[in-house]
């Protein structure tokens, strides 16, 4: 064929939009008439990564929505079953790449339940401190992203990132990496706090209240934000419980469930913090609950930084090389910023886990997306997705 023939040849059928499968349950006649089917994603600015929402629109109103994910699947669980326990630790960083510290902790906790290792006092404090700092990082970023989805051109996001950088600096000087911390170990932590770290952390935490005040002044009372988010994407408490939603999303629907209170893992029973609850379960509640949780986290951090004792940071029985837990199974779960993050492990006594299973909060919280979006507009669907707080690394694993 000559070049001109090639150019004028009909498009390959695979590229033809018309023959793409329609979302299940929508007949051609339905979609072709008044309705408009739009595939939002995987290349869309506000799907927080490679995620697709197949939405059927009536005008601007969503009448059907199907979340499609798996674009970032990397076989995390199977890889973990074929490698040593320790070697899975850096992979957990990449699940929810905003909160590597809490991912580390959840995995370390389940291995500790499997082996009976007990982290020393100082390590427990360090874990609480890093976990709460991670909560600050995650919630700060999330409200920035949420407002970005709402169309606030970068300003809240930049303020959020400015503040997040301070905490990432702390993480870097502690663990060597800003986001992929790979810091916790079975029975403790990898490295002790460097000199001056506690003072620096106290300074960052001390300044956080002011940042939150400024952020509230910037946007929380903004009429547009209030109008955009109140009454949008309502998640009833019953549906939330039935769909096993966890984390701030569940608490925004008014259900009092926080693993830090319910499980009292680590040393959380020493901290008298409060759990904010929403009454409406809409986007505004999810936004505000996160802001209020950050203020509680700041209180926890102030107490922990004050009380942290000296001492060893890892259980002396912990082995780096030749780590083989006894045969058995264990489930460790923590309240990570996005919800309940759990690791279920079965050991057969070999250096590799026999079964390794992650309970990712992002994925499970995402399952109610359609229920929240139906009857809302496209613009709402985008911010509802933003308020769910997903990280595709964790959804797809």
């Amino acid at each position: 064929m000559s070049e001109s023939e090639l150019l004028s040849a009909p498009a390959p059928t695979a590229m033809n939009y018309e023959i793409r499968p329609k979302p299940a349950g929508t007949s051609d006649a339905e979609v072709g008439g008044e309705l408009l089917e739009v595939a939002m994603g995987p290349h869309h600015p506000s799907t927080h990564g490679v995620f697709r929402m197949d939405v059927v629109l009536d005008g601007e109103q969503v009448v059907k929505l199907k979340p499609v994910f798996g674009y970032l699947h990397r076989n995390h669980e199977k890889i973990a079953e074929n490698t040593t326990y320790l070697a899975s630790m850096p992979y957990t960083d990449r699940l929810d790449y905003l909160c590597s510290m809490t991912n580390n902790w959840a995995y370390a906790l389940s291995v500790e339940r499997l082996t009976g290792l007990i982290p020393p006092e100082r390590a427990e404090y360090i874990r609480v401190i890093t976990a709460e700092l991670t909560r600050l990082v995650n919630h700060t970023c999330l409200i920035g992203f949420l407002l970005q989805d709402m169309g606030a051109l970068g300003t809240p996001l930049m303020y959020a990132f400015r503040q997040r950088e301070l905490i990432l600096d702390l993480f870097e000087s502690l663990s060597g990496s800003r986001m992929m911390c790979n810091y916790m170990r079975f029975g403790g932590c990898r490295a002790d706090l460097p000199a001056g770290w506690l003072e620096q952390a106290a300074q960052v935490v001390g300044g956080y209240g002011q940042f939150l005040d400024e952020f509230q002044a910037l946007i929380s009372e903004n009429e547009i934000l209030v109008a955009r988010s109140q009454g949008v994407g309502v998640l009833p408490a019953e549906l939330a419980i039935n769909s096993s939603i966890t984390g701030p999303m569940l608490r925004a629907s008014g259900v009092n469930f926080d693993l830090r209170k319910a499980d009292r893992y680590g040393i959380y029973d020493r901290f008298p913090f409060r759990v904010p609850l929403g009454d409406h379960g809409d986007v505004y509640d999810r936004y505000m609950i996160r802001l209020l949780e950050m203020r509680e986290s700041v209180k926890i951090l102030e107490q922990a930084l004050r009380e942290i004792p000296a001492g060893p940071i890892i259980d002396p029985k912990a082995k780096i090389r030749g780590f083989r837990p006894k045969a058995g199974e264990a489930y460790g779960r923590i309240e990570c910023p996005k919800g309940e993050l759990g690791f279920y492990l079965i050991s057969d006594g070999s250096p590799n886990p026999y079964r390794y299973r992650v309970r990712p909060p992002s994925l499970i919280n995402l399952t109610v997306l359609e229920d929240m979006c139906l009857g809302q507009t496209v613009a709402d669907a985008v911010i509802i997705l933003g308020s769910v707080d997903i990280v595709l690394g964790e959804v797809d694993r």
Partner: protein
Amino acid sequence: MEIPFAILTALTLVSALAAMSLRNLVHCALCLALTLAGLAALYLQLGAQFAGFAQILVYVGAVAILVVFAILLTNRGDQAAATRAPARSWVTGAGIAVAVFAVLARVILTSSLATGHPMVDRGSPTVKDLGMQLMTQYVLPLEVIGLLLTAATLGAVIIALPEKKTPAAAAPNH
């Protein structure tokens, strides 16, 4: 003076023809908008500033958009309009055409072009003069037209109302 007039007339007529004959409805609507704009230019050339600008503001700015919206909301304008006008309405169409033609013919026949009376040059009227005339001499027609348009708007709202309720009722309850 003659050349711009010729260009504008040709543009207006050709786009009007295209508006009637093109297959794609959206193209037709765009050509109609061009026709209306051409008419506005002709008004301007005749020194009727207010009429010309109002023509653009109302017809190109609003009516053309309305037409386009109507096309999109009925059949998306993607496919060529293959549907032929139903047979029984051509009589009505012809009637309207004849009526319009009659009105135009009468206007032209009674104008200075046909009667041969010399045109009276009153100078170009300002917008202020026009406003004065509308508010004094022609205030009754103005009010009647206003009432008519209000009635039409209300009618449109009433027609649109049930349609607006359908999606809300169709939305599943949770």
